[in-house]
Every structure is written in C-alpha cells, then in structure tokens.
C-alpha cells in the first residue's frame, strides 16, 4: 500500500481587511518563517549531503551559543546604564 511520503503543512490566515491582502500575506509569511518552514523548503530544493549537513548544524549550534551568550553579556552590562544615581553630587 503506498504510503504518502510527504505531509502538507497548511498555514491558513483569515484576512481581516477586504482588499488589503498585504497584512494577511505578512502574517502567513511570519508564521512560516518563525516555524522554520521557509528555510527548510529552500534547503530541500537541492540535496544536502550528510557531510555538508553536519558542518552546517555544527556551525549553527556554535553561532547560537555565541549569540545567546553575547546577548546575556550585553543585558548584564546594560544594568550599569541607568539614570544618574548620584544626582546633584
């Protein structure tokens, strides 16, 4: 029995404003991007060999770690950026 090898993921957006499709377009595009579907579709256009895939995933992991630590550092240092605590002195 043939098994469907693909399942379609449907993202549906209802348009609130008649005649203005840009808002619902952006809505749908944002949902797809936030869930990582757009880049997944782009990546599946050509085959990605397992060696390339491992390199890419390692690179993305390192990048994610670096970005998170950097934002953590920045948020920590921004605590010093406050309104003048010694006003008048």
């Amino acid at each position, binding site marked *: 029995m043939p098994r469907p*090898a*693909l*399942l*379609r*993921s*449907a*993202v*549906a*957006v*209802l*348009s*609130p*404003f*008649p*005649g203005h*499709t840009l808002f*619902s*377009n952006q*809505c*749908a595009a944002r*949902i*797809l991007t936030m*869930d990582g*579907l*757009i880049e*997944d*579709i*782009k990546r*599946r*256009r*050509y*085959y*990605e*060999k397992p060696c*390339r895939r491992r390199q890419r995933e390692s690179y993305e992991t390192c990048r994610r770690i670096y970005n998170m630590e950097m934002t953590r550092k920045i948020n920590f240092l921004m605590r010093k950026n406050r309104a003048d605590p010694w006003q008048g002195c």
Partner: protein
Amino acid sequence: MQALQDAAAKQKVEEKAAPAPSSSSSSIYPPVPGQESPLRWAGKKFEEIPIAHIKASYNNTQIQVVSAANQPLARTSCGTEGFKNARKGTGIAAQTAGIAAAAKATAKGVTHIRVVVKGLGPGRLSAIQGLTMGGLEVISITDNTPIPHNGCRPRKARRL
C-alpha cells in the same frame, strides 16, 4: 479545504473579517469545518467559497480557480498570458495571470475567494495581488507547500 484537513501540523490564525459584526472572539484563524461560525461572506459560509490554487514554481506561476465542490472555473498561467521562457518566472507575469484569472472568475459570478499557495517562487505574492487587482476579494490565504518528510531525494547541489 481538503488540504486543511489532510495537514498534520495545522496552524491557524483567525481574525474577524471587516463586514462581520465585531464580537468577542477575534482571531486570525479561519473557521474550522466542524465548528459553527457566524462569519459570512456574501451570505456564504467559509466552506462554500471558491478556492484559487496558485502554484508558484521557480520558473512559472499557474492559477486555477475552483468552486467549493471542485468544479473548475478559471485557469491561467504566465504562459497563457503571452510570456515565454524566463519571463514567465517573474512577479509581473504572475500579476498578469492573476488579473486574467480574476477576470475569468468574475465572469462566472465569483466575488470572494480563498487562496491556496503552493511553492516558493517569484510569483507567490504577486499572483495574490493580481487577483485582488482584478476585482476578487481574498478572504483567506493558505500555504500548502509540499514538505517531504524525507521522501524523494532532490537533485544535486549546484556548484556556483
């Protein structure tokens, strides 16, 4: 509608359409086929409105307007509009095809449509804009791009 039912991961965002009375629930998700909803467009329920399937491939864009009972109403593509070869894979060609499809559909008495887009091509956005410019009112946009769960192996990577 069948695409919505087939999908394993359904993510729906719902908002109140402007002609409907503003009541408590306001979300961007279209009405689920099972549940009753007060939203009506030209007196029709969501399930009875015709669907415009847009296949936006990288080299071409094809549009087919189908009634809710899957009866074909209008079919256009960039090629039928006089574009050839590389020019078919552009946004302008998709917009022209959208306008032509809207004209054919309005000749058959269609006012509101739900749009189902398939593929990530250059005509993805322009085709919907063309349908709107041609006089049809788009009430919902569904993305039905086929995503294989590791099915067929795609072609080899390009070396640039």
